[in-house]
């Protein structure tokens, strides 16, 4: 079913080794897969299986010891810091477990920031931020600072921010990990709704099979290797 065009994400022989004292630990071991545009992907696995490392490598936040990562056609493994920064600015959205809102920015300023980085005119940036905040159910909270918001609200602001610059790819690291069930549910709903509207590819790390079940594709990791892939993706490994 996969079209012959290049996939949104292409991973080949991806390996990450870390030095811990005298020992070398292989955190990720020869991982390969392709993800097509518009898919939602869940990376599942127990603690220490390499989920977060894989996500960091996809985002260019970490450098692989071996192998290649292409995201949206870009050789992420071979780009320098500045090129990565500019690429992240235009093409990547992030949602983190610990929200990572800028504490000196209001909710609206947090959502506006990726747009401001792209030199979007202020009025346009404000309108888009307000629209996104409305989509995640926080239309009235734009002028609040992160410290004045609950955890769930903060994470929904983070979701709105991640979609602000209309990225092709959105990476999420345990987005509900710090939230209780119902609150986490609302965050996931917001994510779903915005992905639907934008048609972007989502890669989400989670240890919760129930959340994983909502994704099109599930990549199961264990001890740094792909254990299996469920759903509609192609493992090249």
């Amino acid at each position, binding site marked *: 079913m996969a079209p012959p065009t290049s996939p949104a994400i292409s991973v080949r022989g991806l390996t990450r080794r870390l030095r811990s004292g005298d020992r070398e630990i292989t955190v990720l071991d020869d991982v390969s897969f392709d993800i097509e545009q518009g898919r939602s992907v869940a990376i599942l696995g127990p603690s220490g299986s390499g989920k977060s490392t894989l996500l960091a490598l996809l985002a260019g936040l970490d450098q692989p010891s071996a192998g290649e990562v292409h995201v949206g056609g870009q050789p992420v493994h071979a780009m320098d810091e500045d090129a990565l*920064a500019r*690429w992240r*600015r235009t093409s990547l959205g992030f949602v983190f477990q*610990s929200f990572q809102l800028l504490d*000196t920015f209001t909710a609206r300023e947090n959502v506006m920031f*990726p747009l*401001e*980085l792209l030199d979007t005119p202020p009025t346009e940036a404000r309108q888009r931020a307000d629209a996104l905040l409305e989509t995640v159910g926080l239309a009235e909270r734009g002028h609040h600072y992160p410290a004045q918001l609950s955890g769930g609200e903060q994470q929904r602001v983070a979701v709105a921010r991640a979609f602000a610059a209309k990225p092709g790819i959105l990476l999420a690291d345990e987005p509900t990990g710090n939230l209780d069930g119902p609150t986490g549910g609302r965050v996931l709903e917001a994510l779903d709704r915005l992905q639907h509207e934008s048609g972007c590819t989502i890669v989400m790390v989670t240890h919760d099979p129930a959340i994983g079940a909502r994704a099109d594709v599930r990549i199961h990791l264990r001890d740094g290797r792909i254990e299996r892939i469920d759903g509609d993706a192609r493992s090249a490994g």
Partner: protein
Amino acid sequence: MSFRLLLTLLRRELRGAQSRVLFFVACLAVGVAAVVAVAGLADSVQGAMQSEARPMLAADVAVTSRRMLPEALDQVPPELVAEQAELRVFTTMVSAVEQQEGVIDSILVELKAVEGPYPFYGTVEVDPAAGGLAGLLTPDQIVVEPSLLRRLQLQRGDSLRIGDTTFRIAGEVLAEPDRMEASLSPGPRVFLSMDALERSGLAGTTGRMTYKALYKTPDVESATKLAGWLERQPDIAAWTRVETWTEGNPGLRRGIEQAETFLGLVALLSLLVGGAGVAQVIRAWLARRFDAVATFRCLGLTPSEVGRVYLAQTALLGLAGSLVGALAGTACLLVVPLMLGDILPNSAVDPFQPLAILQGTALGTGIALLFAWAPLRQAQLVPPIRVMRRTVEPLPMSTGQRAAGIALLAAALVGVSVVQAGDLTTGLVFSGAVAFVVVLLGLIADRLSSGLGRLGERQDRWVMRHALRSLGRPGAGTLSAMVALALGVVVVLGTWLLQHRVTSQLGDAFPDTAPSAFLIDVQPAQWPGVEQVLGEMDSRRVQSAPMVMGRIAAIDHVPTETLVADLDDDARWAYTREQRLGIRADIPSHNTIKEGAWAHLDGVDEISLETRFAERLGVGVGSSITFDIQGVKVPLQVTSIRDVRWESMEMNFFVLVEPGVLDDAPSSRIVTFQLPEGNEAGLQDALAVDFPNITLINVRQIRDQAKGILERLALAIRSLGGFTAIAGVVILFASVGASTTQRARQIALLKTLGVTRAAAAGMLAVEYALVGLVAGLVGTLGANVLAWGVQTQLMRLSWEPLVVPSLLAVVACSLGTAVAGVIGNLRALQVKPRAVLRGS
């Protein structure tokens, strides 16, 4: 990143950082205020000196000539001259018109003919005072010194014959500003106008007339320019001597210049200490922004964009702190004269010092950026992956970057030092010393803390164990705080030690034992009578020594005429003038033999020369100087060279001769003594009657002036000490504040483990007290070394260690740090542990 976005980020990043901003601004402001205030105070010290030294010349610039003043003087650039006057001084005989029985009818006087608004500085005190000197002098009226009236038994209103003309004595001259040098005055002063001089018929006849042109310049710089201009004119320079008021007392001027440089550098040091505080604040601040930086990076900011945001922020705060400091410094200059009242002449302090403000602001901002460089670089190196792993620290700097950073810091340190010192060598020496001290402080503090850390292993009580161990823990971040603190102690204590020494030096230099007057030309036969008169006038501490007058006839058998053939008037004078040869068996206590010995060797007729006098003549130990004493040539051998503390105001000679050598030569005595204030006129009267040949020189005035200037110096150092003390306190809180974030988590953890708030506070107190102890020990050592260096090397004062103040400084630093530590962490102590730990 657009400029607008940069501004937006700048604004947002400053939110919620009020206390940090305050610390930052305070650290810098204190240092900048010191720089600005010192510049202003130095200016006022110089101003005070001007107001006291200028009268010694009565003008800014004086041109003295033995011939008619050259016509080239008419072409003096008019913009350099505000006013001018002319003097002619010469010696002549005057006589009473009506002769009295049994009274001498004529005496030698020193005439001073005046044209123009003389004096520009100081006043000629006359009686009657109304109208001043100018009011009394007319073509047929003159003013004379009271001793002339006494010696000729005349009264005000009587007539006096000068040349072939009779003048009416209109008043008495009591003091004149430019007649303080202890030169031999041949007789009482007579003032007359230039017209009166013409009338006397003496204007063109006398051979030994001194011509003087006096200039008042619009400002100090013009005086230097004018003197330079005069010295460049061949027609003027060849025949005249050009003096500026600053030359009136070169030793004192050099002292004040040194003090200015010194004060300026101490101010720079407090600015650098402030800079160290700034570094602490920025480090702590940016450490708290690492999460935000990581988020910025994830959202697409490049490392250089991150750097730009925080650099702009630092520059902005640096500018703000510097401006606040410049304002505070200016405010100090407004307040200081009010507090000091009559000690500083108000006119001398101009609180608005645009140049100092500019310099202070530039230095402050520069130093903020300089000290922020390393923390800023660290912020750039925060890896974006920190958004996923909170514990990831910024990447270490590469060796190249580190080297570049150190080079930048060194270059900037040298730059600001040279700017502040105003001279390359001093700037280089100063920056080298600072760098050396900082590295040394760091090394000693490091060794001490790890030593104390090891001591912690053997402690049974957990509070002590924890406190000691946390000192020695690598990467505890206490080292930089300790060095900053120690540097603060160096500056505060060092300045205090210095001001203490200078203050006590005041007492030494102007001891109650210093003489207030001299007598010269006391003949051996007159001495018993003079001694009796001195006793009647309640004179105390009377000291006298015989002396012989002589001229240098040859040096190393080369006749003086040959030696001076190519010299100008000024240099020639050292060879040709009449010298007083003091006859003494011992070297006076305030003289120090620099070379050779005063040993009274058999077969050698020894003399000892003052260092600078020997340098001028170009002679040393072993040289032979032949003196012409009343026509008799006496060869003498230089066996020692002496340094003389002229400021002791005691009896001193350029040339000392051992007793026995000149026994046959006609000698007179020089006498020094202290005279109760107000007895001067009485003594003068008593001497005038019985010993008209004896000259009385009153030095009380000179002494009081020099004392006034030194007192101002001590005051300037004390004021600066106040600044550095404030700087020290600010640094203390900044250093403590830098570690509070880290502490909050630690305290929360301890509390969850069951440690009470009081016990946690105790632990903090002990820990900070230890930090303060190490910093205090190292800083006190540094302060003593600094004070020793400045006192012995720069000021040439003796050194005595002040043990008790030094120990007190160590204790105060330790206690102060403990208190500041607990106060700085009060909030952390009160916060519920859950709030802190959840946040992490």
